[in-house]
């Protein structure tokens, strides 16, 4: 701490100042939320709050088949990718946390380097592969790509999660006659459940947000993900703002809430990457 003492008034001023700064910082998004409640007769007025509030926009979005279908597709792709990343990441993260092997540090830093490989090059490769294997325009390459790009983070984060649990618990389970695998499944995984769930949620968010692969691998509009549906909606000549804005809010607010819940479990894993890498 640089400043240790402050008068009470100064504290109040600082609190207000910081809050104001934060609100100004996120004001573009607040504007979007406000706009989503405007009736379509009063689409883009200057006033901050709409003159009359309406949820008609939301109702029309929720009745929109295209929006619902793409949201469901995104849900499918994101949850399968996150599950796969977890299934592959748990053994890897656990080994990094518990075993010492000669190439461990090298492999950990390799995991740090992988994200710097341009996603667009990965998209080209996977596109060509997808066409060759006949899975172009399906969700399989998307799931694969999302799992792949999020795996490094998953492993890093799970490593910190596992390192935070004490060895004694699983060792005592092993003394009782459990194999290491059984000790991992029956003892370690239940304790680390918050960490695992947060990792899952974070990968879920990242996969939901992914745009590049979604636009590369999917051609049919029924198979589109939520990001590509919205991006093509804004690209049209006549943009239906009254529908697009609530759709954008609907597709982000739940994830932001989820993100706020889990952030404290993922910060450590992220920060480790930046300080040790």
């Amino acid at each position, binding site marked *: *701490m*640089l*400043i*240790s*003492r*402050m008068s009470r008034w100064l*504290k109040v001023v600082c*609190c207000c100042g*910081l*809050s104001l700064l*934060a609100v100004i*910082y*996120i004001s*573009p*998004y607040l*504007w979007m939320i406000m706009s989503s409640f405007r009736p379509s007769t009063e689409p*883009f007025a*200057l006033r901050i709050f709409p003159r009359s509030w309406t949820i008609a926009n939301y109702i029309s979005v929720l009745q929109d088949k295209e929006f619902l279908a793409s949201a469901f597709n995104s849900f499918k792709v994101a949850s399968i990718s996150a599950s796969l990343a977890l299934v*592959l990441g748990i053994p*890897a993260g656990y080994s990094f946390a518990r075993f010492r092997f000669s190439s461990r540090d090298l492999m950990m830093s390799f995991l740090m*380097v992988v994200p*710097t*490989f*341009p996603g*667009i*090059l990965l*998209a*080209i*490769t*996977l*596109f*060509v*592969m997808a066409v060759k294997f006949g899975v172009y325009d399906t969700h399989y390459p998307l799931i*694969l790509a999302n799992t*792949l790009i999020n795996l490094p983070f998953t492993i890093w984060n799970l490593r910190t999660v596992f390192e935070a649990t004490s060895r004694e618990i699983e060792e005592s389970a092993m003394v009782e006659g459990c194999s290491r695998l059984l000790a991992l499944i029956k003892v370690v995984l239940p304790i680390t459940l918050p960490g695992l769930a947060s990792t899952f949620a974070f990968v879920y*968010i990242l996969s939901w*947000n992914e*745009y*590049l692969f979604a*636009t*590369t691998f999917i051609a049919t509009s029924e198979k589109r993900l939520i*990001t*590509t549906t*919205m*991006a093509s909606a*804004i690209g049209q000549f006549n943009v239906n*703002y009254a529908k697009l804005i609530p759709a*954008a809010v609907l*597709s*982000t607010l739940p994830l*932001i809430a989820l*993100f*706020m819940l889990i*952030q404290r479990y993922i*910060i450590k894993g*992220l*920060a480790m990457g*930046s*300080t040790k*890498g």
Partner: protein
Amino acid sequence: MFFFTLLAIYPSVFVIILSFFAHGKGTNLSVALPNLSNFIAVWKDPNFGKILSQTLFYAGVATILHILLGFTFALLLNILPLHPFFIRTIRTIFLIPWAITPTVVAILFRLILHPQVGPIAIFLKSIGSPIVFGPLGQPAYALLSVTLTNVWMFTPFYMLMILSALQAIDPGLYEAAVVDGAGGSQQVFFITIPMIKNTLLTLGMFDFVTTAAYFDLTWIMTQGGPVRTSEIIPTWVYRTAFQSFEFGKASAIGLILFLISVTVSIIVLRALDKE
């Protein structure tokens, strides 16, 4: 782990092969000897220099602003002796832009900067200003607008990273400095910054490399336009690969980007090693 290595290495080898062997349209590998014709084609492309410098501008400016703003916010949150719960709440609010889907961020700023329906344009019109406000459609401002949008979106992430580095500094150092009579700014410049310099450099490197390869915002906001003034290497690769289907050339461009990234990383890592 093996599976992962396979998945990570295979694509990189594959694009290298593509860049050397595949010519013209499609992905058919020509049986000719490996040659540099794709790289030469990229080098000779009249837009190469322009797009490269735009990419460097985009990534460079964004990196500098991410780190500067992120550091300022993190410092503010770290030094003020306010209630921890309040600080945590503010930090969470600051994180929101980073949690928003990039597509939605792009849409949001397209709306805000829109010349007819955007709030800024409406405000300017209401006060009778003659300025036509639509930076995304103006060649001089499009790239800058996308860059600043990127800054808005990703600064929270760097703030978070820098904040956790700041919190790792031993408070005893500051106490010792206070005993020696160091003022506030002296503490920042002689303790805080040297202590987190390595983290800043690593973050900056990571930032530059990932921003230079960042596709989503630019593509949705401007598609590289108007008249390719906001085109950066990732969008160029995308255009070459998926609109004109010249996969060999696209791979070559992408690899040039990757080479730049690797060079930057090596320079920074060397600088870190010297410590």
